[in-house]
């Protein structure tokens, strides 16, 4: 696929209470956003198991993001976002060892009042991943597992 035609597919795990609400407001406010981000609403960013992220990459995502409520105080459940910031730095290092570029996995905080920040994130992320090109994990696996001498 020619680079310029490449439209990345980005999976976004968004917390129901903050970032999902921000994305909702961004839509209602007609803020300009690329069509490359597929949102999966979860009740809490702390509920995102690292295997969800890995499965995203395995099944064709070019980027995966996890966003929730600002710590310390914004979490609807008190400290769900603490789980997030304890897990995600370790997951970043794991993905680096898997050879997945750091731009392809991002996580952080966007509150319900930060719709413009969400719209900006989707634009920036899509551009960055367009530059990186497709990940195509499955075809990479197939190619590397069947390659002979």
């Amino acid at each position, binding site marked *: 696929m020619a680079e310029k035609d490449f439209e990345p597919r980005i999976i976004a795990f968004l917390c129901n209470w903050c970032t999902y609400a921000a994305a909702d407001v961004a839509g209602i406010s007609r803020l300009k956003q690329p069509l490359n981000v597929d949102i999966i609403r979860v009740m809490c960013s702390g509920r995102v*198991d*690292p*295997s969800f992220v*890995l*499965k995203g*990459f*395995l099944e064709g995502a070019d980027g995966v993001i996890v966003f929730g409520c600002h*710590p*310390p105080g914004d979490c609807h459940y008190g400290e769900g976002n*603490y*789980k997030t*910031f*304890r*897990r995600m*730095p*370790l*997951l970043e*290092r*794991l993905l680096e*060892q*898997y*050879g*997945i570029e750091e731009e392809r996995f991002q996580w952080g905080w966007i509150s319900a009042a930060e719709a413009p920040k969400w719209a900006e994130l989707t634009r920036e992320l899509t551009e960055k991943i367009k530059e990186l090109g497709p*990940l195509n*994990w499955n075809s*990479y*696996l197939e190619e*590397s*597992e069947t*390659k*002979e*001498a």
Partner: protein
Amino acid sequence: MAGKPKVAFYWAASCGGCEIAVLEIREKILDLVQAVDIVFWPVAMDIKYKDVEAMEDGGIDVCFFNGAIRNTENEHMARLLRAKSRTLVAYGSCAHEGCIPGLANLSDREAIFDVVYKDTASTENGDDLVPQTRHEFAEGEVELPVFYNSVKTLGQTVPVDYFVPGCPPQADQTWAVFEAFVKGELPAPGSVIGAGEKTVCDECERVKEEKKVKEFFRIHEIIPDEKKCLLEQGIVCAGPATRSGCGGLCPMVNLPCRGCYGPPPEVVDQGAKLLSAVASVVDADTEEEARQIVSQIVDPIGTFYRFGLAASLLRRRKMK
């Protein structure tokens, strides 16, 4: 079954420990050979591949296959033994989930050959010779197996009926599997046998209290308390994300579980689950503090996927 059941044992990419594990049933091996005919076992008997090729399809009742699939020879034998065996058992961690050979999936053939044949300080290889798969002599041509880029598990190569986890499987579990087979009491195909249905934590007798870790240690950096949960002492222990069945042997001798029995039931990716469990006990109140604490875990993939990289969701590193 007419006559005694026919049993085969084979090793592919493995260390040989699973062969020893079979003998760990000790004198019961004599009971085993009373009950079955062993028709193929390269480590113990002089039977050639061509003899196996001459057997009729389905002629072996059960084959215990240990070792991962690293090269064309391993794959050829996996396919051959699959065709000849009614029941194929992935015996031990390498066949089950790639085990230590599977960690080579952090590299590829070219990088491995460079290290082994060129780059190590003790290697003198002025002509940069690497093994070729064919060579012609005056007497004829010889062939070597082709070394693959990736290590695969047995189940990723051919259909497997049962999986016996462990590096190596424990003797009592191996015996239980032999007994179940001889008595015809095996569960539905596709099952993990010779193991438990819970986690290693469940059978570990250490005292478990509150898990709040400020500092992680590698095993040579600390002499752990002998009673207290190792994870609570900052030692990465794979117990929370590892299938039970070994009896908690490693924690019993003050060593952390390394995860050789693979993921517990319903868990797809052992490393991701272990990462999740370990990170959740990090006692950090800010992102910076969490980063600082988890930076003490030196090699996340080697730690969380020590035995399961080849069977994990992503299976291998993407090389540049």
